């Protein structure tokens, strides 16, 4: 490999990477610069924090921040636990485990739009849940999950939908982590007469820690970007940060405020990644 690259001179890899670099500079780098311009100037063109002041004076911003955090706190831990159990189970390699693996992965390929409509199909007033409850005589009139003033109910539908949709995401990361643990560790543990619990706490858990940490980080970052499921199931009854970017931009054409919301999401994500990289080991982040 090294001999090959030395023979041909050093400019070739740069040339090969150049189009990608230019593309990212143009469509990620430049818009980012533009974001700073938008966020830190007012309508009149003054440089300053005017947009942030407008934003923080709007009670909706605090609601959106609070809801996003609530969703994160409820969803992420549940997802990690569920995904870990699933990954341990699939990794036990019972007969036919590959089929189970594919089926668990189906939601990974689905959009949040589609997932939201699937849960609407179950929880709507004429949905399957209501029909089953009515026919079994448990309730007489349908139980409403969606609608004005019912955001505390739709909140839990959003949680369930996200659990269904995004648990496989965590599952895949954890499974990849479990798959690389060498069998020899377990064989050695068998020799020393470790119990299953001991094996789990002394081998499996420490060795999957890196995947567990990166799964946690990714899920946390994604949780700040939650949009489709919430917007389709509750509209603006449950305001979230990403939903406000959309609302300010698409409904109000308020470019600066929309960009400021986006900026705050990015800022939170960078902050979380930074905390994560500083306080936890970074070795496993290398591809």
């Amino acid at each position, binding site marked *: *490999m*090294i001999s*090959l*690259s030395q023979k*041909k001179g050093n400019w070739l*890899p740069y040339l090969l990477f150049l*189009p990608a*670099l230019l593309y*990212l500079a143009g*469509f*990620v780098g*430049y*818009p*980012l610069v533009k*974001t700073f311009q938008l966020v830190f100037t007012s309508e009149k063109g003054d440089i300053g924090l005017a947009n942030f002041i407008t934003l923080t004076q709007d009670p909706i911003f605090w609601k959106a921040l609070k809801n996003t955090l609530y969703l994160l706190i409820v969803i992420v831990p549940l997802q990690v636990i569920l995904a870990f159990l699933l990954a341990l*189970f699939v990794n*036990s390699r*019972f007969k036919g485990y590959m089929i*189970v693996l*594919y*089926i*668990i*992965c*189906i939601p*990974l*390929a*689905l*959009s949040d*739009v*589609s997932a939201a*409509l*699937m*849960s*609407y*199909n*179950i929880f709507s007033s*004429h949905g*399957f849940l209501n*029909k089953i409850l*009515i*026919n079994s005589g448990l309730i007489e009139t349908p139980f409403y999950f969606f609608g004005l003033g019912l955001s505390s109910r739709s909140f839990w539908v959003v949680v369930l939908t996200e659990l*269904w949709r995004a648990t496989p995401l965590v599952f*895949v*990361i954890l499974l*990849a982590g479990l*798959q690389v643990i060498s069998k020899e560790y377990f064989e050695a543990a068998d020799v020393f007469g470790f119990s299953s619990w001991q094996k789990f706490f002394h081998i499996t858990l420490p060795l999957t820690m890196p995947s567990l940490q990166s799964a946690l980080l*990714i899920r946390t970052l994604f949780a*700040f*970007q939650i*949009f*489709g499921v919430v917007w*389709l199931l509750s*509209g603006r009854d449950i305001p979230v940060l990403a939903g406000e*970017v959309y609302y300010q931009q*698409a409904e109000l054409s308020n*470019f600066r405020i929309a960009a400021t919301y986006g*900026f705050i*999401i*990015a800022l939170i*994500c960078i902050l979380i990644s930074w905390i994560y990289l500083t306080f936890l080991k970074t070795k496993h982040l290398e591809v």
Partner: protein
Amino acid sequence: MNSQKIPLLLRIRPLITIFIVVIILIWFLTPLVLITLSAFASSDDYYQFEKVIPTHFTLHHFESLFFGLEAWKAIINSLSVAGITMLLSFLIGLPAGYALSRYVFPGKNFLKLLCMVTKMFPLMVLAVPLLIIFMRIGISDSTWGTSLAHTAMVLPIIILIFSSILSGVSVEYEEAAMIFGLSRIQAFFHITIPLVLPGLAASAIFAFNISWNEVFVATILTLTNRTLPAHILKTAMASPDYIKFAAGFIMAVPAMVFIFFVRKHLVTMWGISLK
């Protein structure tokens, strides 16, 4: 006492496995089965509380979705956006992935890190400035604009996937071919590409899938030339329920096909794209 317990546990273990498998299947498949049922169920069946499982089926909802709500346009937009995204990210990503997998050069780690940082970066922050830029150069509200934005999202992932796929093929094959007189480019196309073709095909479908599913940027960047998810987000919630289910079903179909074709690469691909 222990010696008696263990055989019992071993005996019921397969049963426990089957039990857990059944629960997993029910949890993951029920929403899919139910939306398929609802997408084809007649509206009379849907609005009757007594009818839990519909018995009358119709294609009427798809007809109203496609033509009444003009979703056919959105589907064509979605297909072309995803197609262009796939093509662009391949054209730009393949040489970049090759560079990362085959060469050692100063700045390589920086470029890798750049890819990892960009793919983790929330796209939300880019949507608004991109719209302003696209308005200025006159490609706002177009399939091109959305494709360019989607490519920015997919490209870093694709580069990392390519680099990992290509690293799986030993350089010695290429070197051997070059000894026999093939040029580097010929060696790449005649030796390496055929070996990694399944992986490349899987990544192509992967790129297509990401673009097909993306809703946020697509909604912000377009007004009339919406992709399917953007169209659904804007119109479906104001439509009758059965239209929503038909829409959800249509969105889900390519995803199922996707899972079927890339099943062997699932864990690797998402492992790379998420890590």
